[in-house]
């Protein structure tokens, strides 16, 4: 089994963000940390892992680096105590560049963290300001450098494209610099405009202008080309790694393997059932205090739905999906292949880079196309 731990707090909110996160006091965060431990213990008493320990832990947020390196180490200890931890387990923590000192990195790594994921987002100070990130490019570089010298096996940097007033050149040179510094993994996300965010209001007012679809697509395709030429594997729509450095925890999601999510709003897939925790931190705290698991929205995934999930998730990865899982007539897939959106070989169907850009539409076409 794999464990996801959600840390739903940030120092301040970014203008584009609609993740489950909020700004909170130290005492609330401390109470939350204790409750996380309690939740893990409760689960540990309910499920048996069949002699195996956790195969990976992923501490995400929010900003888990609001915790100190020692606190993160303590959390990993608690998880390991509750469920056991495989010797070669992958343990990731997300870090915001404006948070950790070199000492935090050291503590986290000696406490078991072997994968560090830095939220660089951009190396253009203007862009960072427009996104109201709390750090500048220099701090981002410093965080990456600290991560690289901390002894962690893998260092990832998140970078965004399709930024307001962000040029393709700036984006590519950011990637280039990260690659030059020696990061093993890059996550490349498009900035998406979520409803209700401050950024969305700015775009509506016309104060901020987002690049057009064509421009965004070009940025992505250039990134794919550049990273592949630098020896990165494009193993998932948004993810690139040097050989042997893929994120096993995230791959498990795409492969529909089981995982338990703890913390407010965390999602789980266990025993063929998808469920999530209450999103509200206060409700989450209250329920666990009363000795109840804060689970809600449990849904057993029916067979056909599971097949759809398999396709939807599997197609995100470079491995693709077996042709027989997709079913249907070959002609439909051929049409998409002729459009240069996917390839069919060795009995597997895979998206091309261009296909990945329109993966929603391709997926809908594969699953629901009518003659």
């Amino acid at each position: 089994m794999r464990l996801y731990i959600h840390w739903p707090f940030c120092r301040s909110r970014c203008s584009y963000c609609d993740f489950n996160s909020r700004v909170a006091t130290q005492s609330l965060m401390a109470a939350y940390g204790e409750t996380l431990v309690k939740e893990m213990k409760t689960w540990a008493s309910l499920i048996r892992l069949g002699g195996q320990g956790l195969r990976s832990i992923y501490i995400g947020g929010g900003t888990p680096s609001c915790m100190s390196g020692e606190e993160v180490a303590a959390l990993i200890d608690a998880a390991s105590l509750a469920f056991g931890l495989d010797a070669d387990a992958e343990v990731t923590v997300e870090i915001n560049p404006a948070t950790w000192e070199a000492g935090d990195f050291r503590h986290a790594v000696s406490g078991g963290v072997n994968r560090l994921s830095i939220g660089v987002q951009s190396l253009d100070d203007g862009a960072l300001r427009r996104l109201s990130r709390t750090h500048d490019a220099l701090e981002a570089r410093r965080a990456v450098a600290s991560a690289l010298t901390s002894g962690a096996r893998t260092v990832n940097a998140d970078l965004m494209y399709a930024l307001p007033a962000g040029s393709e050149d700036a984006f590519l040179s950011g990637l280039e610099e990260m690659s030059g510094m020696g990061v093993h993994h890059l996550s490349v996300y498009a900035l998406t405009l979520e409803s209700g965010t401050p950024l969305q209001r700015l775009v509506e007012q016309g104060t901020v202008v987002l690049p057009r679809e064509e421009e965004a697509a070009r940025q992505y395709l250039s990134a794919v080309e550049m990273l592949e030429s630098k020896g990165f594997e494009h193993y998932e729509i948004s993810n690139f790694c040097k050989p042997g450095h893929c994120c096993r925890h995230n791959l498990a999601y795409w492969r529909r393997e089981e995982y338990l999510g703890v913390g407010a709003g965390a999602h789980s897939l266990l025993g063929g059932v998808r469920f999530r925790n209450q999103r509200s931190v206060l409700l989450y705290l209250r329920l666990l205090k009363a000795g109840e698991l804060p689970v809600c929205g449990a849904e057993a995934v029916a067979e056909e739905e599971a097949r759809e999930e398999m396709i939807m998730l599997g197609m995100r990865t470079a491995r693709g999906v077996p042709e027989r899982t997709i079913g249907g007539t070959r002609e439909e897939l051929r049409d998409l292949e002729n459009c240069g959106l996917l390839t069919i070989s060795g009995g597997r169907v895979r998206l091309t880079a261009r296909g990945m850009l329109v993966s929603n539409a391709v997926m809908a076409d594969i699953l629901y196309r009518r003659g």
Partner: protein
Amino acid sequence: MDRSRIRNFCIIAHIDHGKSTLADRFLEITDTVPRQKMAEQYLDRMELERERGITIKAQAVRMQYRAGDGVEYRLNLIDTPGHVDFSYEVSRSLAACEGAILLVDASQGVEAQTVGNAYLAVESGLEIIPVVNKIDLPASDAEGTAMEIADLLGIDPAEVLMVSAKTGEGTEKLLDAVVERVPAPSGEAWMPLRALVFDSTYDSYRGVVAFVRVVEGTVSRGMKIGFMATGVSASVDEVGFFSPDMISCPGLEAGEVGYIITGIKDVTRIRVGDTVTGREAPAAEPLPGYRDPKPMVFAGIYPVDSDAFTDLNDALEKLKLNDAALSFVRENSKALGFGFRCGFLGLLHMEIVQERLEREYGLDLVVTSPNVVYEVEDREGRITHVRNPSDMPDMGTIKEIREPYVRATILVPPDYMGGILELVKERRGIYQDMAYLSGRRVELRCRLPLAEMVIDFYDQLKSRSRGYASLDYEHMGFLPGNLVRLDILINGEPVDAFSVIVERSRAHDYGKRITQRLRELIPRQLFDVPVQAVVGGRVVARETIKARRKDVLAKCYGGDVTRKKKLLQKQKEGKKRMKMVGKVEIPQEAFISALRSGGEDKGK
């Protein structure tokens, strides 16, 4: 009643010139409707008509009037429709009268349709009583209007009566003039029955109510009758007249006007213009002038929601019950699914039908832009009529396409003449001649392809003359045109609903407009989609809907797949509402907006 004391007459007036108001005054003067009971405009019954100010169905009212000479007369006022779409109905109403009041608004002057109908009345041998109305209005020009009427009819301006239908001034004198000048009907009660059906309406309990003018003979309750044009037989369940309510009576004699009810439920069996005769002693000849209702304008009518097809079918059936001129056949469109190709007398008729379907039956409709009927002669000399552009045979097999033309009369102040001539030219009109009407107005005569009129000719006419121009037209048959069929292809597949017949020289402009419109409306696909306008295999306009390059790729975070699943679910739902044209998915709404806006700017 003594035939010499009967007067049958109608009022010819342009819309809003005061016909209904004048009729109300007559009903009051004759005590047919007591003053206190007078709801405004008693004769206008249908709600729609009241709102639009259009008289769709004529009715007849019997009034008793003691004239200035002290003698009691029976006056039958027959209402006539006011719009050219219904000119055949107008002609039948006129045929039921011996006289007509020509009513002209003193603040507006003579309008083209009034001229048309006045000439129609003169040709039918009716006594014309020219009247200027609204003389109470400060802005009116009674003298000038009288001059215009005098010019029109070739009479002395002094012969024109002056009234205010609103205040009642001059209206009693006008009724006296009707009595004096309109001849009594001829025709004998003992002759074989010949009665003209000049209108009909439908009552859901009693079936068709036919309005008749008995020309010769007598029609009475229980009598066996026949309709000479349709060959339908029936027996008379009820005979009567309106005064103003339905009053039944034993019979109607030569010269009288009233209604008959036979129990026939199907309006297509009792047609305006048909002659009623007796089964026992039938007349040798029907009355002259009958014509089959001939739809000239066609359009596809489709339900927006394809589930509503049966409702639309039912609604059309019901409308047809009291609208014999409406025709419809089922058709299947690639873009719009199942619907009907409907035939109308004209554009107004089409609008009325559409509005009634939407309002009375609550249907949400897509109406394709209207087209006319084409006469097509193939190389072997065979002639067919094409009512739907997508039925037009391959251009290679065609020798000639002919289209319906109208003879149009336009009245316009001299200042706007230039603009109107230009419009006529733009619309492929052939100028004939012009004449000045008392110096204030030019009467312009021309021929126009009906196809050019069914789009927005009338609106253009009004806007280019600041509302002063008026129009009248009559059908004049088919003339050859340099016409081609233009098809719209989406990714190589023709989409029937957008096929049109256009003049060759305009194919490019039209094609460009429609392809641009579709490019804007059709969502991007996973591949480039060409949208082409094609004439006889040749592309005359082309647009490309560029392939979609990028979806919204929200971060799939912490194993939360619910968003992705929701998005997929939404796409699944969306796909259900898509129409497939070959491999292209097009939301129904895109077709609808393209069709709805397609006609608007076609003429510009």
